[in-house]
């Protein structure tokens, strides 16, 4: 049977207790209880529906509760083509999310405009919001989407407390004229 054990955090382990840092414990808790916001616009959205369904089941990764309200979401999953008309909407949804927040660009259209090199399509959502993980594919298979989500989980697990207050992060937000 393919049962794998989760890795223990670094630190001292004793009989019934573990000594570790708050950052690591918080990172473990956060990464396995992300509340995603599925911003599904087109075909990648249908593959996301297949990923949420029982065969691929994203809920195993702690993402049982999809939040459609940005105020209650941690992870913005942008799936599908973002047209120039939709850009301001996407930016507004991103600014409404509370820190800490992560963004995953699922699909070729969200990453770089995809096959639609046209006047009406935004050539990648990183033109309007900062992106953490890009998942290529047209559409990406559910396994690829899960791989992207697992990379997000790694990012969440290893994020330091001070990152959101650091000058580099503030500079990043200023570049996008957010906040």
């Amino acid at each position, binding site marked *: 049977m393919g049962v794998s054990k989760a890795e223990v955090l670094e630190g001292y382990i004793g009989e019934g207790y573990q000594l570790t840092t708050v950052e690591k414990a918080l990172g473990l808790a956060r990464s396995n209880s992300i509340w995603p916001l599925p911003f599904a*616009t087109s075909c990648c959205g249908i593959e996301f529906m297949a990923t949420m369904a029982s065969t691929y089941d994203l809920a195993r990764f702690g993402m049982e509760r999809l939040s459609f309200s940005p105020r209650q979401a941690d992870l913005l999953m942008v799936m599908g083509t973002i047209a120039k008309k*939709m850009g301001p909407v996407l930016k507004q949804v991103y600014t409404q999310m509370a820190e800490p927040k992560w963004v995953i660009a699922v699909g070729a259209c969200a990453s770089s405009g995809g096959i639609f090199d046209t006047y009406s399509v935004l050539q990648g959502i990183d033109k309007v919001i900062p992106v953490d993980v890009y998942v290529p594919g047209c559409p990406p298979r559910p396994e690829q989407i899960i791989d992207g989500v697992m990379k997000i989980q790694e990012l969440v697990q290893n994020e330091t407390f001070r990152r959101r207050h650091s000058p580099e992060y503030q500079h990043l937000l200023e570049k996008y004229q957010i906040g």
Partner: protein
Amino acid sequence: MQVQSYFSSLDNLDGELSTLNLGPTHPATHGVFQNVLKMDGERIHSAEPTIGYIHRAFEKLAEHRPYNQITPITDRLNYCSSPINNMGWHMTVEKLIGCELPKRAQYMRVIIMELSRIADHLVCNSVIGVDTGALTGFTYMFQERELIYEMFEEVCGSRLTTNIGRIGGMERDFTPAFHAKLKAFMQGFPARFEEFNNLLERNRIFMDRCIGAGPISAERALAYGFTGPNLRATGVDYDVRVMTPYSSYEDFDFIIPVGSGQGDTYDRFMVRQEEIRQSLRIIDQACKNMPEGNYHADVPDFYLPSKPDVYTKMEALIYHFKVVMSETPIPVGEVYHCVEGGNGELGFYLISDGGRHPYRLHFRRPCFIYYQAFPEMIKGAMLSDAILAMSSMNVIAGELDA
């Protein structure tokens, strides 16, 4: 009717109506389109839709791509049933060049198209269930969609945006693995589908929610250009497969299900359920009567020659080069061809001037045309009925905006 008398007392209430913005990002609108609703409490007074949030300029894009590179673009129209769009485009070009396919290739196309129609209707009906609160049907039916996806993968390598077939036929014959998967699907799916059906068809709650939600009469539907299951739910039995048969549909024996005439959500749900059963019937007949023959027509100007020939024969090499570089001579002319897509009559109007790219390609998109009637359908309805009406119309944003 109740609605008219309710609104007669609202004539001077315009200042008291509240505005509700539904979309473009909303959990219940399956796709990005916006509706600004003017509401009196829970009842909708008027609606103003805004679309174009996923406008990808397909028609302009098609003017800059060679003919065989337009197939992936047609994929992204109604992406829940992309093989139908692909086949429609291939048939349009074949009509232009005057190419007739062997029967075997036509039967193969029919099987692929009916499988994708089943996939499309499964999405729509499970999502109608989800919008009324019944999530179980969704989880069961998406497992069946995975089986259909596996069959598409056998044929073309991709699950959702398939780019199946070529101008002049199919790219390869069906493998034994495909036939095995199809046989297993045909044996197991009907029983599981009836399980899903029994969850909802005579379910008291479902019927109370759906009957009367978003009705439209046959005259208004025809005036608005409805086609497909939405039109058949109003009682008009117009199906492109029967009216102007293409790809050997005249050889098959199937019925066109028609709704009760009210044209409400329950009618649309039941019409799609029955169409799934009829699609299964068609696939069954196609498998049993599959003729022998070639899986592609003899059009070396458009259809890539087989690789052993390319490596050994001179003319095959030249044809291969010409097809890949799109240097093939395309006749001048204009043609309109339509297929019965998941949502209705999907038409392709192609004007060719003999060059590598089409001069003008216009997609007659059923979703775009019938979504105009949405404000009329929900006038006076409650908000939750409007959500149901929207999801039962099966509005796919890719087809709406192109």
